[in-house]
């Protein structure tokens, strides 16, 4: 039996994206903090996932954005390149469209404020809550950070506890530390 060649497989995946037949295109991206599953809709980046169990992640993407979920490297190329640059220390800001259409209003507002926290700086949960016009919602902000759909690109690693402790990170504290060290926010 002749197997499907890598080239044919790739051509189909490219064509599916080119003809705009996908609800979600995704690929795996190698980084110093491990392999990331990076996914995008037509509108923009919709998911970056650490330690993704692909089966579960695909089910989740399909439920959220539609069943036409396909691994297709090309739509991820821009994000892949910018992530490479970021980890090489050559990029401080991401220029990528993001798709937060399905986030609740409050989450979207908090994530919008989060996106403005500059490279190499940290902010407390409380301060971020204040910037999102909900000064008493530090705990709710913590929950939004924990469920951040786009870690690294939306820099929830720059959010720390009132005492300056790193506190928590959905991808694990080791990674939070690595990212902050990379940005020179930790010595």
């Amino acid at each position, binding site marked *: 039996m*002749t197997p499907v060649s890598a080239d*044919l497989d790739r051509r*189909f995946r490219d064509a599916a994206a080119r003809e705009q037949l996908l609800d979600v295109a995704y690929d795996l991206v190698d980084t110093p903090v491990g392999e990331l599953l990076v996914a995008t809709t037509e509108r923009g980046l919709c998911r970056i996932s650490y330690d993704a169990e692909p089966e579960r992640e*695909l089910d989740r*993407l*399909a439920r959220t954005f539609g069943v*036409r*979920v*396909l691994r297709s490297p090309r739509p991820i190329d821009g994000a892949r390149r910018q992530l490479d640059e970021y980890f090489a220390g050559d990029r401080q800001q991401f220029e990528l469209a993001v798709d937060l259409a399905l986030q609740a209003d409050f989450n979207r507002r908090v994530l919008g404020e989060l996106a403005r926290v500059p490279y190499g700086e940290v902010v407390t949960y409380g301060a971020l809550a204040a910037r999102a016009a909900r000064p008493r919602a530090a705990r709710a902000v913590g929950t939004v950070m924990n469920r951040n759909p786009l870690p690294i690109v939306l820099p929830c690693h720059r959010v720390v506890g009132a005492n300056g402790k790193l506190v928590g990170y959905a991808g694990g504290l080791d990674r939070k530390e690595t990212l902050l060290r990379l940005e020179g926010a930790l010595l």
Partner: protein
Amino acid sequence: MTLPPFERFYAEHKEEIYAFLVRRLGRDRADDAFQETFLRALRAYPKLRHGEHLRAWAYTIASRIAIDEHRRPRADAELPEVASLDGRPAFAQLEHLAQDLPPTERAAVVLRYGYDLDYADIGAALGSNATAARQAASAGIRRLRRKEAQ
């Protein structure tokens, strides 16, 4: 059963669908037909109401595309030796004979006797049920016998 993400459907069926297209069309033409099959599946995918009988559905699309490909003349190549590639000469003959049947009967006959799908799968592929698929297949066979007798 809910519809799985397309990636899973593709991963599960791509090899056998490709093998099927290679048998039908030969290596050269199978590649294009393969891409066309899964692009067509992708277009129709969100309209499916459940995730059952997806294998039969994939074969139905692939066999329609293979039939179209067969009809399309090609200047640069002879038709491949379907029978010898396939190792199932009876099936190649069947395909050829079934060409003139009404579409539902043709699909039922080919899926049943060519690809050995059971009637439940064929019914699903045809948008009906096992009983209707069995009737269509036997009507098709009767029609072929009559033709044969002429």
